[in-house]
């Protein structure tokens, strides 16, 4: 099990030493990812549970269970696609070493059962993602990184205060201790991590960071870094002192799902649109915080990676991020993969988005929630009809072999997941897509980009603190 964490980190260190030799580093990154992936089947289906060191229960515990499987699978797929896509570009060894160290650290988060270890690994992933966002050293990227850094490190300090309280009350950093801590510790832990979650109003740094990051980095941010908090919330909700969180997530989640859609529909920039759509999808996952939403996290990571890669590659080729200018200039093969991703995220039958989304909607607790979730599903179809109705040009177009391979792996995963999990009642999602497309043609004239008031650094910080206070108030009222 420890092999899964240390192999990529070791590869990263070797890349750092050999960073002058670009080709070698790229090959090494690909090799480490594939070796790690080929060992996955042995780990996923055996119930493994180890404590590191010879201290018995005092050591850091690593364990694999049903909740961690989708996240570990999605980490492998996203990293493989990104490495394949980056082969023909001018990335040096430093980039590959950062990517590999991040891969090992993400695996470590999803396996660890120790709160302080979670803190250290989350901080390591954050530091690497700050460097990756501003990798091209543009001013706008540095500003997005700095905004993310200030908000995220403030939030993680609250998290550190929370686990300090857990240690004071139980005498250990193990996650089992969360069954018997006071609710102020649990609200500090939740509120501290929520700044990284991507929920609307909790993390308004997100659209800037995701849309300005380089092509290969946006999929990591949207598919994996945001999922850290989704995973940890799903895990924490199972402990007794987090009982209030499930009730709060119903309101916060559905609010975030709908607010993200309103911002995304009005956006003109393709990468910004995808970033707002991440906010909406994270809200969708948080509404029912259980095993089903972890599988939605998996399918979201796969199709969002596909969409971000296609959008990033097209906008670097054409030199514009406005999706309206792509019409008539995007080649047929690029349009095909864009279509697969858009249909998957809006929930077309026989794709992975349909399966997980329909299960979440049918697991909703009450009728009003079901209606609102259907509305947000219709809204997603409305956003992505912007991509579905682009006009492809006459020529077929050629892609580099690595990029083609990355796109195909992701599309095949979407198809297989969609066909295996398909049930006959899921055809109703087809109806929702039709309504969404109709609404898109009705409202197309009235779409204007909304103001970025919440995304200024002071406002996003103030809004985060207000939501934090709101959570504390919710806990006091509910206990």
């Amino acid at each position, binding site marked *: 099990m420890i092999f899964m964490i240390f192999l990529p980190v070791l590869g990263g260190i070797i890349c750092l030493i050999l960073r002058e030799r670009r080709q070698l580093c790229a090959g090494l990154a690909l090799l480490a990812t594939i070796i790690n992936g080929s060992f996955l089947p042995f780990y996923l289906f055996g119930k493994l549970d180890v404590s590191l060191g010879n201290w018995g229960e005092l050591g850091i515990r690593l364990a694999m269970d049903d909740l961690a499987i989708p996240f570990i699978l999605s980490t492998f797929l996203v990293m493989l696609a990104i490495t394949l896509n980056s082969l023909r570009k001018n990335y040096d060894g430093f980039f590959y070493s950062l990517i590999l160290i991040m891969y090992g650290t993400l695996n470590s988060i999803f396996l660890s059962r120790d709160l*302080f270890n979670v*803190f*250290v690994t989350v*901080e*390591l992933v954050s*530091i690497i993602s*700050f*460097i990756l966002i*501003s990798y091209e*050293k543009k*001013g*706008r990227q*540095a*500003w997005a*990184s*700095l905004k993310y*850094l*200030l908000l995220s*490190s*403030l939030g993680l*300090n609250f998290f*550190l*205060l929370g686990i*300090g309280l857990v*240690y*004071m009350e139980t005498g250990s*950093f193990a996650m089992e201790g969360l069954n018997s801590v006071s609710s102020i510790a649990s609200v500090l832990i939740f509120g501290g991590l929520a700044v990284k979650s991507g929920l609307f109003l909790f993390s308004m740094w997100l659209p800037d960071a995701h849309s300005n990051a380089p092509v290969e980095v946006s999929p990591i941010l949207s598919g994996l870094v945001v999922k850290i908090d989704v995973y940890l919330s799903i895990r924490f909700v199972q402990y007794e002192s987090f009982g209030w969180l499930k009730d709060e997530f119903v309101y916060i989640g559905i609010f975030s799902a709908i607010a993200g859609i309103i911002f995304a529909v009005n956006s003109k920039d393709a990468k910004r649109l995808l970033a707002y759509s991440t906010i909406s999808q994270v809200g969708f996952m948080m509404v029912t915080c259980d095993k089903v939403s972890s599988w939605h996290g998996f399918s979201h990571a796969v199709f969002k990676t596909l969409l971000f890669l296609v959008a990033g590659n097209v906008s670097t080729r054409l030199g514009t991020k406005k999706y309206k200018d792509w019409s008539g200039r995007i080649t047929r093969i690029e349009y095909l993969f864009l279509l697969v991703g858009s249909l998957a995220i809006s929930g077309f039958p026989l794709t992975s988005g349909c399966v997980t989304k329909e299960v979440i909607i049918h697991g909703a607790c009450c009728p009003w929630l079901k209606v609102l979730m259907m509305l947000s599903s219709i809204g997603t179809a409305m956003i992505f009809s912007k991509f579905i109705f682009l006009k492809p040009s006459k020529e077929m177009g050629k892609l580099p072999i690595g990029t083609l391979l990355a796109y195909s792996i992701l599309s095949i995963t979407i198809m297989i997941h969609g066909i295996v999990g398909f049930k006959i009642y899921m055809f109703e999602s087809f109806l929702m897509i039709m309504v969404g497309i109709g609404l898109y043609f009705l409202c197309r004239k009235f779409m204007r980009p909304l103001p*970025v008031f919440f995304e*200024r*650094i*002071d406002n996003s*910080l*103030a809004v985060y*603190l207000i939501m934090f206070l709101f959570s504390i108030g919710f806990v006091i009222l509910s206990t």
Partner: protein
Amino acid sequence: MEDVERIYKQTGYTMTGNVIFYMSVAGMLVGTIGMLLSRNIIKKILSLGIVETSINTLYAGISSRRSIIPPIVNGDFSIAYADPIPQAVIITGIVISFALLCLSLVFAIIIYNKYHTMDIGTIESNFEREKE
């Protein structure tokens, strides 16, 4: 022998520990308010430093819990020991906060070289004008 019993029967935290708790929570609030109100990037980063230092100090307070059994085989058990685990783990926290401060100053330098100002209002209005 009486000394040993007296030490291990006590509960709660030492007085210094309690003072540290209140001081560090107060420092955290001060730092958060500083981050919220200051308009200068460097001042924001310094406020973040205050928050991080207060939290790291809090862990020193946590290890002042009474009646800790020291993790040693042979030794003088008649004196009180501090809890070693919070002290051991917070070293990692101190290193992380140091790395974060360095990285944020690097970003501040990049921004200053591009826009020649540290005022966030000027920088953000600059960005919004660029977009149009």
